[in-house]
């Protein structure tokens, strides 16, 4: 003990507050972080499931007959951009998408409805289609079509930024009556890692 004291600088013996100050400072510096695993941050994955309305339409039976030329319009087509679909964020983080198309039909005709997804260059990247059951004025027919897109197909889907919707009727005349309605939504299953 005497040896230790002999090696303590005289200024410290004269000012005992110095070693005490150093001791407390050392205690504060010796605080530690333990029992933690910060590498676990690499395993953080956000998995939100987002539901968004997609498109809707309300077609009248008369839309399938051109009264000027008095000829049926057996296929009508429309296109809309879906600009966010080919965003880098969606391309990287979309794991799966589920489309739900809900048709209600009071036209006494069945329909074939196709959905063609196009990229910026108007090349087709993904297609799907469904048949809509014929209804009657008194009994509206409901057709629900779901399409799940996953794995490699999701890459095809997320290269598109527009969708072409084609509605085809087998036959039409001026007397045809009723409505074909569509409501739709997409469920986006995201996995956000980095």
């Amino acid at each position, binding site marked *: 003990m005497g040896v230790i004291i002999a090696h303590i600088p005289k*200024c410290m013996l004269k000012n005992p*507050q110095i070693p005490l100050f150093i001791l407390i400072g050392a205690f*504060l510096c010796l*605080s530690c972080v333990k029992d933690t695993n910060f590498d676990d941050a690499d*395993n953080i994955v956000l998995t939100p499931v987002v539901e968004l309305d997609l498109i809707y339409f309300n077609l009248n039976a008369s839309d399938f007959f051109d009264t000027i030329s008095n000829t049926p319009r057996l296929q009508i087509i429309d296109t809309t951009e879906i600009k966010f679909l080919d965003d880098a964020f969606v391309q990287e983080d979309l794991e799966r998408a589920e489309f739900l198309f809900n048709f209600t039909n009071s036209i006494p005709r069945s329909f074939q409805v196709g959905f063609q997804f196009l990229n910026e260059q108007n090349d087709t990247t993904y297609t799907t289609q469904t048949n809509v059951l014929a209804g009657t004025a008194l009994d509206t027919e409901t057709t629900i079509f779901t399409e799940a897109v996953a794995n490699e197909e999701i890459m095809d889907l997320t290269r598109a930024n527009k969708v072409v919707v084609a509605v085809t009727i087998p036959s039409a005349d001026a007397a045809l009556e009723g409505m074909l309605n569509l409501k739709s939504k997409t469920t986006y299953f995201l996995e956000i890692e980095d």
Partner: protein
Amino acid sequence: MKNCCYVLFALMAVVCNAQNKQVLYGLKETPQSVLLNPGIEVPQKVHFGIPFLSQIHVNAGSSGVTVFDIFGASDLDINQRIRSKIFELSDKDFFTATQQLELFNIGWRSKGDIYFSGGIYQELDFISYFPRDLAILAWEGNRDYLDYPFDLGQLSVTADLTTVYHFGVNKQLANRLTVGVRGKVYSNMLNISSTNNTGTFTTSLDTDGVNIYDHTVTDANVTVQTSGVASLEEKNGAGEVAGSVLGRAFFGGNLGVGIDIGATYHVSDRITATASVLDIGAVFHTKDVETYNAEGSYTLNGIELIFPPLNQGEATIPYFGNLEDEIEEEIPIDTLTSGYTRWRPLKVNASAEYGFGNIFGGGECDCRNPGASQTWQQAVGVQYYAIARPKGPQMAGTIYYRRTFTEGLSAKATYTVDSFSASNVGLGVVANVGKLNMFLAADNLLTYGNIAKAKSVSLQLGFNIIIDE
């Protein structure tokens, strides 16, 4: 979003009721105590702060979650831990960080027995409330939350980087009463704030038959005010950005003014009461200002196709562009460059102390002259602290024990209950070696065995030269 998680967790890791210096408050043996109470009894004749070392203060915390809660060794998946914390926290929980670096500090007693003090310090102050609803939306999405109004008003954040120039006077007006006042000029280098926001986002089943859902933003009014930020976008690299920001430190930023006031009153020879109000002032942001405001209501139902008859080569209707235009019309995002005023975070300190033991220096109590700058060797007391924050004041209560061991060594131990913890133990030591005055103060010492379990940590240290009477 993941990056936001990292930032929040990093804040939890580095940095408490931010700005509460409960250990230093009233510790008159260190010159910096006059910054916490301009009306403290100043014992010394002259002091010089050692430039850049006279006070270093770091302070950070989160009111509802610790680093260990997320990153602690556990068999439970980290994503489940984060999810459970998101639901456990409320929108009143917050993350704070404060850092102060004193560049220069000096004080002297005049012949008229007034103690003048002044200096410059730089301060970073950040607070973000936990936007719980937005975190749930980002973590879970909206599928399982039909009819739930996600509250956009939970977004509340302020960040300030400021240089403060101050000069104060302190005088004992009577045997029992010492008062002080400090004037401040603020040079704000950076400010980002988004507070008092309103609005909700709700996804609900469509009731009027248009489409499957109504995605509705109701009465949104979200504003982000910035100053000193817009011009940084033109800078190349971190070096240029840092140079530009630091260039505003010396009156180059947006200026403001404020005052601190304080007093010490000896109720009796043993009981002393103190109080101070700090940063009564505001910064007037007029330069390099950009304010972004989004206001309105809108219901999204998707895109309606109308299948117009088109001739060959005729372009179709730009539905998506029209939708974007419609949204921008209903909820326009305006960028304003008009100035704005931000109040400084007002702080209130108060204490009551009972002294006992010997009167330091061996003197006896002069009962005809109670309180005349005498120091009891030991004291116990209570302190109150409050700071004005965007969602209301945050408060802390402290009990403490202070002891002067020798002329050169004093210490103060504190027990604080605040928004972060009900068991915050702090300790401060002031040592004088010759004319060199050193102080060191820290809190949440009970968590020092594993600081990852602390909701907040705070540290102040400094070196000054003191010339006594």
